[in-house]
């Protein structure tokens, strides 16, 4: 790995961490409902630098983020890890298989969708063990995932256009 890559990953991961921390300060109507703002950084990384960088940034964000929040290796950490990995992996796979088919909006929606599926599955496998409880939450998560996925996708799209316009891509 080039040292320029390392700088880039460090900067992107710290952006993601900052958004992650900022998001924790916003009061959520439901405890598990999160905007997933750091996903904006994942999408931007994926579009500019590729799958490996995006996965690295996500992993750094999840591990460091949970250490900073004090949730490392707790239930929230495993939910965050499974969701983050599934979301980023699904985005990487779609980007690799169908390059150019989806823009940031579509990629972000796909990420949000698989993020939620993986979290529900983890919650079921590790904690809840009651399919009814999962089924009740599913529609709300699907709707929330659509809204936050679209929001993050539009934000990422806007940022990507701005970065291209100002030529600040490093």
């Amino acid at each position, binding site marked *: 790995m080039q040292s320029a890559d390392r700088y880039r990953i460090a900067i992107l991961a710290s952006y993601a961490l900052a958004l992650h921390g900022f998001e924790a300060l916003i009061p959520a109507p439901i405890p598990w409902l999160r905007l997933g703002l750091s996903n904006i950084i994942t999408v931007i990384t994926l*579009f500019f630098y590729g799958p490996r960088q995006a996965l690295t940034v996500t992993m750094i964000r999840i591990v460091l983020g949970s250490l900073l929040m004090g949730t490392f290796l707790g239930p929230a950490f495993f939910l965050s890890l499974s969701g983050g990995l599934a979301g980023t992996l699904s985005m990487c796979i779609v980007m690799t298989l169908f*390059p*150019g*088919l*989806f*823009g*940031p*909006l*579509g990629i972000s*929606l*796909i990420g949000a*969708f698989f993020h939620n599926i993986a979290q529900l599955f983890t919650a079921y496998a590790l904690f809840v063990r009651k399919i*009814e409880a999962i*089924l*009740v939450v*599913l*529609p709300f998560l*699907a*709707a929330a*995932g*659509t809204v936050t*996925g*679209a929001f993050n*996708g539009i934000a990422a*799209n806007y940022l*990507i*256009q701005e970065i*291209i316009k100002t030529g600040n891509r490093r």
Partner: protein
Amino acid sequence: MSFLKTTLADKVLLLICIFLSYYSFAYVKEALPKGTEVRIEVDGRLKYAFPLNKDRTVELSGVIGRTTVEIKGGKVRIKEAPCPNKVCIHQGWIESGAIICLPNKVIVTISRPDNSKGPDAISG
């Protein structure tokens, strides 16, 4: 760098996502086990438990008077009540959840039959 813009596939995917979330609400509502038993509590005590699928009308006496509960076609309503504001009557027919009449202390709930009340095991 035109490939970074929002594509047609993006918009289609967004529509699919919106449709799926909308549809999943309806689907989950259908898939979940429905309540099959009507329970009527008066003053905190369980007075009656009827199957929801059998039509009948019950009159019961509450704290301030007589309340009439009607079960019909898988739905329940309070038909008559002595309370002054008739909130329970205005709630109309319900398929799930509960009707609560505070003045008369009558609570009608639809729930799944409670298996724990039956015998734990039957020995021959």
